[in-house]
Each structure stands twice: as C-alpha cells, then as structure tokens.
C-alpha cells in the first residue's frame, strides 16, 4: 500500500522542505511530549526567521530552546515562556518577538486551523491586553473577542504509537497539544516511539486519524523531566 505508507527513514527526509521564514506548529507542554529529534533536525538545518507556535519554548539546553542559540526563531506564539534565560535576553534585545496567547485560545486556534474554521469567539482575554485590536461582539449580553485560527507550513508532533498510515495514539499527558498541532500543518511530521502495522491500533482508540499526517519517523526519546516531584511511600 505505497500510497499510504508514510514512514521515512531519516530526519533529513522527515523535515525536507523546511525553509527560512516558515511557520512551524509544535506539540508538547513544557518538555512533555515534544518531538525531540525533529527539533534537533531543525537546529541542524539552521533555517532562520522561523515563527514557532508552541505552548512553551523549552528550556535553555533542551527542546525548542535549542533553536534560540543560533537565533533561528523570529517569533514565538506561546502561552508561557518563563523557563528560559536565553529567551528573556533575546526578547529584551528585540531580537525575538513573542505573541502571548492564552493556553486554551492557543489550543483552539490550532484546532480551528486544521478544521477550516478561520475564526471563533471566546470570552477569554476580554478586557485584557490580549483583546487589543480584536473585534468584540456580544452574545447573550456577554462580550467575546474574535480569535483567528493558526496554520503552519509544518507541524511537528510526538506520538507514542503510529501506524504506517499515520494513525496516532498518544501516551498519558504527553498528548497535550500534539493532536491539534497534527491537524494544522501543511506538512505534518510525526516522531513516534513505536511504529506498528495498520490494523494493530483499535480504530476507535486512535487519537489522530492518519489523514492529517504526512510523514512518520521512529525515534528514541530522552524524555527529560522538567519538575521531578515524588512522594515517599
């Protein structure tokens, strides 16, 4: 079934077509569920002036934070970017632009982008700096602001299991933004812990149907923990 076999065997193939100035939508929350190898490949390719849409920007030495070292990022669209000294420096220098977006609005903007919905209304951010320049409309006596959807030339996603057709299953809270990111890329690239044959994933348990996915690569992940909290038993 050549037509639906989306597995590629190198990171070069996985990120082929990435160019300066593109918008990349990335799954992950903090360091949880991030496509580590695809980010490393982006660092290696050295493309510049990128717009990255991701809830966070990693830390100084891991995740999307690595793209800051060679100043590859022009603009971040994120809800929280406070884990990262280099980010702070580039932001204050004016080398980096940030568009702070409430977390739920960000998730919905990605979903809307993939779902052909150019804009939606939300009460989130009404009366705050987030509402600046946005259309306000009343529904049932309450104010809402219009938020526009987001799409990208690429989406980079981490999955647990992927089949060759690109059907995806995510593991625990490593799911987070990954399913929305997967829908919003013109080219959606998935890095998976495991690749299985079509038919091995139960159809109703698939989180992301393969129609959204263009390329799949198998990877080993470091899975660094950002805040290691344990209890004594």
């Amino acid at each position, binding site marked *: 079934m050549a037509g639906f076999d989306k597995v590629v065997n190198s990171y070069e193939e996985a990120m082929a077509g990435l160019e300066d100035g593109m918008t990349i939508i990335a799954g992950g929350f903090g360091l949880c569920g991030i496509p580590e190898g695809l980010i490393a490949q982006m660092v290696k390719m050295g493309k510049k002036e990128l717009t990255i849409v991701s809830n966070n920007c990693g830390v100084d030495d891991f995740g999307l934070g690595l793209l800051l070292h060679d100043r590859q990022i022009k603009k971040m669209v994120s*809800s929280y970017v406070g884990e990262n000294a280099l980010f702070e420096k580039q*932001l204050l220098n004016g080398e980096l632009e940030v568009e702070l977006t409430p977390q739920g609005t960000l998730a919905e903007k990605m979903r809307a982008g993939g779902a052909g919905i150019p804009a939606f209304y939300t*009460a989130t951010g009404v009366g*705050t700096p987030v509402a600046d320049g946005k259309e306000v409309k009343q529904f049932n006596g309450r104010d809402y602001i219009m938020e526009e959807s987001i799409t990208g030339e690429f989406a980079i996603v981490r999955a647990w299991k992927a089949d060759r057709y690109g059907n995806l299953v995510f593991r625990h*809270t490593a799911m987070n933004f990954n399913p*929305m990111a997967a829908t919003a890329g013109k080219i959606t690239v998935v890095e998976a812990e495991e690749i299985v044959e079509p038919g091995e994933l139960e159809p109703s348990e698939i989180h992301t149907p393969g129609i959204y996915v263009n390329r799949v690569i198998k990877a080993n992940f470091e899975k660094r*923990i950002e805040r290691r*909290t344990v209890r004594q038993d």
Partner: protein
Amino acid sequence: MALTRDQIAQRVARELQDGYYVNLGIGIPTLVANFIPEGMEVMLQSENGLLGMGPYPTEAELDADMINAGKETVTAAKGAAIFNSAESFAMIRGGHVDLTVLGAFEVDQNGSIASYMIPGKLVKGMGGAMDLVAGAQNIIVTMTHANKHGQSKLLEACTLPLTGVDCVKKIVSDLAVIEVKDGAFHLLERAPGVSIEEIQEKTAGKLVVNGDVPEMVF
C-alpha cells in the same frame, strides 16, 4: 496572626463541595488538595489534559509522560480521564469546572484580577489563567493581603495588566475571607487575632463590614 500558607489552603478547602470539579493553580492553591475534608470527594482538573489528578508519584511510578499543568510529575487518580489541550479548555471555557483557585498580584473591588505580568519585568505569559478566570463557574483567589512593602493588593481598580474582568468571587488572604460583590469587598471572616482595623488599613478598595466579623477557627 496572619494565616500560614497551609492555613490559607485549609480555609479554601472549606469552600469545596462533594462532587466538585476543581482546578488548582500553582503555589498555595496546589496545597488545597492536602485539606480536602474527610468523606468528601473532589476531582482535580489539570489544564494540560488530566481530569482526576492523583498524588505525586513514588520513585517507582515516576513517568515523564505524566505531568500536571505546573510541569510536576503526578499520577492519575482512579477514574481519571486524559485528553488533549483543546478538550481540556473546552471544559474550562464551557463552564464545566465548578471552581478555580488561583493566585494574583492584585484584585479589585469589581472582581477584576491581575496575575500574569508586571510591566518592566519579564513577561512570562498567562498560561491557562485567562481561560480559567473567563470560564470557571466560581473563582477564589489566594494571596497575601498586602505586598512586602505593606501595600494593599485589594484595590479600587487594578493597576497591572488584567488577567480577567469582573470574575473573582472570593478572596482568601492571609488576613481575611472576603466576598467580592456589588463593587466592594465584603469582609466575611478574620484570621485569628487580626482586627477589623488592620484589615481595613490594608484594604485599599471599598471594604464593607457588617456587624461582628467572626474569626476563622483551625
């Protein structure tokens, strides 16, 4: 005596009801989970995609793929559900979460809250706080009544960039429990040994005091 962080959390826990779905912010709000009354069941929502958050894991249970919205490693409670971020905020924005508890820099007498940004210092971002204050059925703020310079954080109007407007219903500070309604702070309870005068002095916004205000008991 001003309340300790644990006492603030303990007092907030009295606002819980059996069967509540609750989102607890980072800091003091997180401690509320330690004071859920005996025999009462509440389910904790973590906005990164977990309904039914359990305790921290043991060393053996530790899993990088199982974190909360504060990026701490956690466990899933029995009967938990895990879902994506759009679904998580559908529940929050759609008003399905009964109670949100979060911290703040400032709250004003109309219930507006500033909690995510101090201009001139670095902008870290609002995370999920703006969605939570816009969507939750009930919002309780925990904070110290005044900052370290003794300046009130309960204002006539917030001075910092807002997280949300007209949304905070109650404040549990280190000095008092205050209901926010009708454009004023209504004093409901005092910390043990804290006088109405002290609370009045540290409340810059309009404070309404009705008769004897009971002391909290712990």
